């Protein structure tokens, strides 16, 4: 009996010490790498943004000028969506956000959308998706130029009722064998533009420096959804 209890104790001790060792190793590495990881993520974000809006058009640190917005009906996710503002001498130039197209063929499509202060699209990119390889993944920039067709468009060009894929009477191409994917992307971009139009003043407000009374430039402001969306096609 005694020996069994002793060997159990030893085993438990060994297991516990290895658990502590493992946790310690992970903790040390985490501390050692977290700054680099954050820097790498920021660099990746900036590289993405600069592909949409040229670097020389703004002078602020975009990754730090951030506003988190919760608006599931418009942005396709319950999670806060970060909005980044690009400014030139404090004046708003463009806005970037990462809304979601929730109705892709196999789940959500994560987008990066850039829009200039005048409401024209600086561009759209796909950050992550699980669409069918070879059919739906044509939305990726490296696979086809389709996603570039959004650049320069706005809610007046084409008019709102033509913000659809061609099959639904709109102006955007669909792909052979995949209509659901481009339809989801077009819908998400249109909803995003509508949201930006409604909240234009607040989203494109000048910086805190030029308008110190504004509390909108602080982080994590929840914009309250103005009204329920009407029927969604």
């Amino acid at each position, binding site marked *: 009996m005694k020996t069994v209890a002793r060997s159990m104790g030893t*085993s438990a001790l060994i*297991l516990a010490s*290895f658990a502590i060792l493992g946790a310690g190793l992970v903790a040390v590495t*985490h501390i050692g*790498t977290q700054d680099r*990881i954050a820097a*790498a993520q920021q660099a*990746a974000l900036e590289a993405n943004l600069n592909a949409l809006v040229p670097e020389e058009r703004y002078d602020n640190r975009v990754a730090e000028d951030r506003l988190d917005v919760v608006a599931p009906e418009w942005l396709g996710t319950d999670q806060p969506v970060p909005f980044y503002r690009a400014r030139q001498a404090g004046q708003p130039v463009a806005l970037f956000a990462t809304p979601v197209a929730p109705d892709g063929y196999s789940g959500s499509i994560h987008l990066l959308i850039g829009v200039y202060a005048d409401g024209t699209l600086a561009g759209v990119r796909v950050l992550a998706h699980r669409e069918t390889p*070879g059919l739906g993944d044509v939305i990726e920039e490296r696979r086809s130029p389709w996603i570039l067709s959004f650049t320069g468009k706005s809610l007046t060009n084409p008019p709102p009722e033509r913000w659809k894929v061609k099959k639904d009477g709109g102006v955007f191409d669909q792909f052979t064998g995949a209509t659901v994917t481009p339809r989801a992307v077009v819908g998400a971009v249109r909803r995003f533009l509508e949201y930006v139009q409604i909240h234009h003043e607040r989203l494109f407000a000048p910086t805190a420096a030029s308008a110190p009374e504004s509390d909108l430039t602080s982080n994590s402001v929840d914009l309250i959804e103005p009204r329920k969306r009407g029927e969604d096609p």
Partner: protein
Amino acid sequence: MNDYRGIFADGLWRNNAVFAQMLALCPLMAVTSSATNGLGMGLATTAVLLAANVIISSLRHLIAQEVRIPVFILLIAALVTLADMVINAWLHELYKVLGLFIPLIVANCAVLGRAEAFASRQPVLASAADGLAMGLGLTLAMVVIGACREILGSATLFSQASLLLGDGFAFLETTLIQDYKGFLLMVLPPGGFLVLGFLLAGKRVLEQRRERVKSAAAGPVDSPAH
């Protein structure tokens, strides 16, 4: 010790983790849609295998028999988490491609298998050699399967290799057929099973032929000449 030759022959061919032991199929199917992905995953797994084997072998006298499996799993999970963070920090571009799959290394039975079958019984150097050999064998299998699927599925080879290996290796990226429409089946998981099946059959044929040649060569000795 000329045993190392045997260890490497085992790892790379005779007892190859994929082609002989049929282990590691879960990460294999997930990542081998291109040769570059296979290579990246293979190298990451090799690093984990090597580190796990060395650590487990050097601590083998401390690890009590009764709790060895949970201890192995703990150590392997810790090592994979380390690999995940290190790749995220220093090879961020690659992480964006492989990041999803790196935690899968924990589920790679080959790592636990080598810890149990080899490293917990053998000295450190031999265990290191075994980890390296098994890892390289696994990498070989992943690159070959990835290459087959990539060629058949999208008519490219080593696309995005410069993300993994640096811009100096951009020359590896080849497009075999321009405007290839793609062969979807090969890119999807069933393609992985098909390619693996054909490669296994090919390996068996090779081995049987070698056996036959061997027995034919030995034949005249057995039956005395008239």
